[in-house]
């Protein structure tokens, strides 16, 4: 190898190593007045996780995709795996979010193929989702999960900062949501821990660990980037799924007792 080639290799190795060197804490990310990373803005995934968290092929209306589950497969208990397979067969009629427009739950709200806006304040981080105008309040005021509350479709979220990472603990999740359109599911014992880490001004690394002793054999993790929607004046619009499906299914229906 010529001296010039060696220099070139060294140069490019240095450049390639830069991103790793620049990690933690990320430089140049926007910061809020309290010094925390400022997640304010409109974000959206570019993954196919909403259809299937695991590796999957394309189908009519389904984008092919590489899985987002660490280790490849969701560690189901045997009976839970059987239920997942049954769900998959009936996904077009039984997926609560797609077939009935029910609130998507957590973490699915994050990776529905719709944008969401983060509204950040020191004590409250609000996530406003375009799908079903869903909303999550992430309390970062040090309050614990309330005791004795019922389950919610989007759960109860309490956040804290670990350095520059927002860590959100989610409990009180309603067992009726699915994790994706492929029928991946959970029980009312689901406990989700999300981690939001801004890697540069326009990207958040989203990680979620799911723990459910009734359904899985061990906690498991998904991760994917969130991309900032950088269009000028971009805002959350409306995807009022409930209204669309009502109009489709009841639009020409004859009411009981109608004339």
């Amino acid at each position, binding site marked *: 190898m010529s001296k010039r080639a060696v220099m070139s290799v060294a140069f490019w190795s240095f450049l390639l190593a830069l991103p790793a060197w620049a990690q933690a804490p990320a430089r140049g990310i926007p910061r809020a*007045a309290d010094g925390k990373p400022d997640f*304010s803005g409109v974000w959206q995934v570019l993954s196919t996780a909403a259809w299937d968290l695991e590796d999957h092929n394309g189908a009519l209306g389904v984008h092919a995709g590489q899985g987002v589950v660490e280790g490849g497969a969701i560690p189901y208990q045997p009976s839970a795996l059987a239920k997942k397979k049954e769900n998959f067969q*009936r996904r077009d*009629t*039984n*997926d*609560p979010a797609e*077939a*009935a*427009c*029910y*609130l998507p739950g957590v973490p699915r709200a994050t990776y529905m193929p719709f944008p969401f*806006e983060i*509204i*950040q*304040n020191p004590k*409250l981080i*609000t996530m*406003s989702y375009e799908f079903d*105008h*869903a*909303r999550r*309040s992430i*309390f970062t005021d040090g*309050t*614990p*999960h*309330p*005791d*004795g*509350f*019922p389950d*919610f*479709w*989007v759960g109860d979220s309490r956040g804290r900062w670990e350095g520059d990472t927002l860590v959100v*603990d989610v*409990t009180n999740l309603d067992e*009726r949501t699915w994790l994706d359109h492929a029928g991946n599911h959970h029980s009312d014992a689901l*406990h989700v821990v999300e981690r939001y880490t801004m890697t540069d001004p326009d990207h958040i690394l989203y990680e979620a660990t799911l723990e459910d002793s009734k359904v899985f054999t061990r906690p498991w993790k998904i991760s994917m980037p969130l991309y900032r929607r950088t269009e000028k*004046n971009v*805002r*959350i*619009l*409306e995807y*009022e799924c*409930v*209204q669309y*499906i*009502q*109009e489709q*299914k*009841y*639009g020409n*229906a*004859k*009411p*009981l*007792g*109608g*004339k």
Partner: protein
Amino acid sequence: MSGANASPTGRSHQLMIRTLLHLAAASILATASLPLLQAQNQTSAKWTPPRTPDGHPDMQGMWARRGAAMAEANAPKTPLSEFGTTGQPYPTVFNTGVITSQEASALANRPTGIIEPANRVLPWRPEADAARREFLSHMIPPASLKYVEPQARCVPPGLLGGDDRHPYQITQTPKSFVLMYEYNHVTRVIYTDGRPHVGPNIRLYMGDSIGHWEGDTLVVDTTNFNDKTGFSQTIPYHSDALHTVERLTMIDPYIIDYQLTIEDSKLFTAPIRIAGSFAAAAKGSELMEFACAEGSQTLPNIFGFGLFQGQ
């Protein structure tokens, strides 16, 4: 994970203590300020609101909306009124935010409802008035989906359709003023960053809201409505020509004055002005989840079949 140091009883106990404290404070304030009021008549003008870091009034917190309603004189009867209500409040879990200890005294003598026209007779276009009366006559039983009262089938409520037994929360950032409804989990992000409205062909249940500050008053201009939400049980729909201007002014620690101007040239021949208030709700309360379609049996009961084969 759970760190549960607030049991349900602990929580309601705290709330009760807070309520009592607020009541005590309110009565002391009321007594103390009486001579002042008599002396200068305009005490509230001297009060200055807390500020956000960017210098605007800080209205963040939990609020109960009161009085902002399209209660017209000579309203036609709605068949729904025959059903009445139970008179019972919602279960506690749904109204933790609307305990407003100051409410009774603070809201007394505040303007509410339609203030223009003063006689509360709305300037209806005859054809629009006829259309809503036709709607009301076909409501029960509903002749088709479109005659089912919008709120009963989980349509986003628009500006006046929210159920005010549920609290609201305000949060502010340098670029937006956000009004969150507990009711039907609606979030109105009112951008104050100088952006224009979205294009005219985008039509939204909650409209497109942009705001600016005029002194200490937030002025909110909303356009781009669709024609699928309404104003009240007797005015089930407005038109897509609706244009509203809201003015929010914090006048003391417990009250945001709320003024709403409604222009809908397809319904009315003149603007309508409405007044109301946001009254401070119990400190420490939080918005709960109001899921609507997930639990509603309205449409299955009317049409005899459900939407969903799942669970």
